[in-house]
C-alpha cells in the first residue's frame, strides 16, 4: 500500500513511519521549513502541488496533533486550511482512507472516574491552541467524511508516548510506541470501519483511564495488546 505521512519530521510521524516501513511504501512530507532528507517539502496549498503529493497514494496518515509547532495563528491555519486542502486533494485523487492521528487529551478535563468512550463529546480548551487545533482538524475531517468524499479514521491516542514498557508507566493514559505503530498499521488494513470512525487507543496500564473496547473490536490485530 502506498501511504503518505504528513508532518513527517515530527516525533509522532517517525514512530509511525518506523512501524509502517517495509510492509508499505511510504511517502513522507512536511512543510518546506521542516523538510529534509527523505521528507518531501510541501506547503499543502490549494494548487497542483498538493494534487501531485497525493497522486498514487492509497492511504494518508495525518498527524493531527503535535505535528507542527509555531504561533497560534500558524497552528490554526495549518490544522484547518491546509487540512482542507489535503483532504480535498485526497478526495479528488480517490485516496481510500485518511487516518487522522489525534489525541485523547481532548478529554483531559473529564474526571478520571468517568467511562469516557468514543460516544463522548470532546472538550478542548480554548487557551491551549495545540489542543484546539487538534480539535479543529477533527472537525474538518468529519465534514469530508460526512460528505462521503473519503473515509476517515480518527485515532485518538493516549499520552504520554513511552518507548519502554507502558505497563510500568505511572501515567493512566500512556501509550507505547509499539502500540502506536501497531494501531496505525492495523487501521490501514482493517475492514468494517465506518465512513467516520473514532477509535480510542492507549496501553493497558494500572488505573487505565480510557477503555479501548472499540479498538479491540474494530482493530482485531491489536486486541491482545490492549489487555494487560
Amino acid at each position, binding site marked *: 500500500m502506498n501511504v503518505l505521512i504528513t508532518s513527517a519530521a515530527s516525533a509522532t510521524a517517525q514512530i509511525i513511519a518506523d512501524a509502517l516501513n517495509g510492509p508499505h511504501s511510504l511517502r513522507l512530507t512536511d512543510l518546506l521549513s521542516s523538510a529534509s532528507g527523505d521528507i518531501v517539502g510541501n506547503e499543502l496549498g490549494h494548487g497542483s502541488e498538493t494534487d501531485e503529493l497525493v497522486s498514487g497514494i492509497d492511504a494518508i496518515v495525518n498527524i493531527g496533533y503535535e505535528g507542527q509547532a509555531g504561533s*497560534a495563528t500558524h497552528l*490554526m*491555519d495549518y490544522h484547518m*486550511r491546509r487540512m*482542507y486542502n489535503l483532504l480535498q486533494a485526497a478526495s479528488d485523487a480517490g485516496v481510500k482512507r485518511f487516518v487522522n492521528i489525534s489525541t485523547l487529551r481532548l478529554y483531559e478535563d473529564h474526571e478520571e472516574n468517568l467511562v469516557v468512550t468514543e460516544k463522548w463529546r470532546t472538550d478542548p480548551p*480554548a487557551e491551549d491552541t495545540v489542543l484546539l487545533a487538534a*480539535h479543529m482538524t477533527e472537525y*474538518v475531517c468529519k465534514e469530508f467524511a*460526512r460528505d462521503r468524499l473519503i473515509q476517515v479514521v480518527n485515532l485518538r491516542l493516549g499520552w504520554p508516548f513511552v518507548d519502554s514498557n507502558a505497563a510500568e508507566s505511572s501515567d493512566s493514559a500512556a501509550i507505547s510506541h509499539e502500540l502506536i505503530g501497531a494501531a496505525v498499521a492495523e487501521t490501514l488494513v482493517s475492514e468494517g470501519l465506518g465512513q467516520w470512525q473514532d477509535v480510542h487507543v492507549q496501553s493497558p496500564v494500572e488505573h487505565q483511564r480510557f477503555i479501548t473496547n472499540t479498538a479491540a473490536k474494530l482493530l482485531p490485530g491489536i486486541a491482545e495488546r490492549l489487555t494487560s
Partner: protein
Amino acid sequence: MKILILGGNGMLGPWAVSAMKERHDILLTDINEPRVDYQGEYLKLSADDVDGVVKAAKGMDVIVNLSVLRPDRQLAFDVNTLGNFAMMTAAREHRIKRVITTGPHYQMAGQQYEEWDFDLNPDMPPAPGTRLYAHTKALGQEVCRVFSKRHGIQVITLLYYNMKHSWNLGGPEAPVVPHQDMVPYSTAWQDCGTAVQAAVEVPEERLATRCETFFVLPDLPHGKFNNEKTKRVLGWQPRYHVEGLWNKDFRTPPDNLREAF
C-alpha cells in the same frame, strides 16, 4: 454601548450600521474604505489580523463580526475562520462579554438538511459539509463555541441566506421574477440590519445558553426554515415579508377589495 464592527463595509455592514448608529458608539473596521456618506469612526483592519483586532477591541462592550470572503480558499479561511479566532482572542483578552457573528444558513443546515427536511431550526447540530463558504464559516463558529464554553463569552450567531432589496425584491439572483417563488429563506436587507441590532441589545437573561444561533428570516409560508426563536428571544420583528415573490396576487389589487368578502 461601544461596538467594534469587523468587516463592516461589505454588503451587510451598512444596514447594521444604519440600524445602530443612533443608539451606540461604533468603530467600523474593514480592509475597504467606508462609503463616502459614512460619518463615524473607521479603522482599516483585516479581520484575521489577531494583534490588530485585539488592539481595536480595547474598551469595547461588543464585537460584531460581519466579515466574509467566499471564492478564494486562502482568503476564505483567513477571514471566515481566523477572523473569528481573532475576535474571540480579543474578547478573551479584554473580557468582552458579548460577540455577534454572522454567516450563511448552511454553515449549520448544510445540504444534508436542506435537501431533505423541513422546519429546520437553529438548534440543530451543525452539518456544514465541505463547501468552502459553509465549511470555513462553520469552523469559525466552532472556534467561537469553544471559547464561549471556556471563557463565558456570550456568542450570538446570526445566519442568513438570501438577502433582498425591499423596494424591488431584487437579490443575488437576477432578474427578479415575481410570483414564481424564491429561496424559502429570504430577508430584506433592512431586516438583516435590525437583527444585528437586536442581537447587540437582547438582555442576557433571555438567552438560554452562552452560545445561541438564530435564523434571520421573516414569516414565510414554506415551512422550510423556522424563525420562531429569533422573534421570541431577540424580539426581532421583520418589516418586510417579500410576499411579492411567493404570492400570486399583486400587492395592490386593482379594485383594492379582492378577497374582502
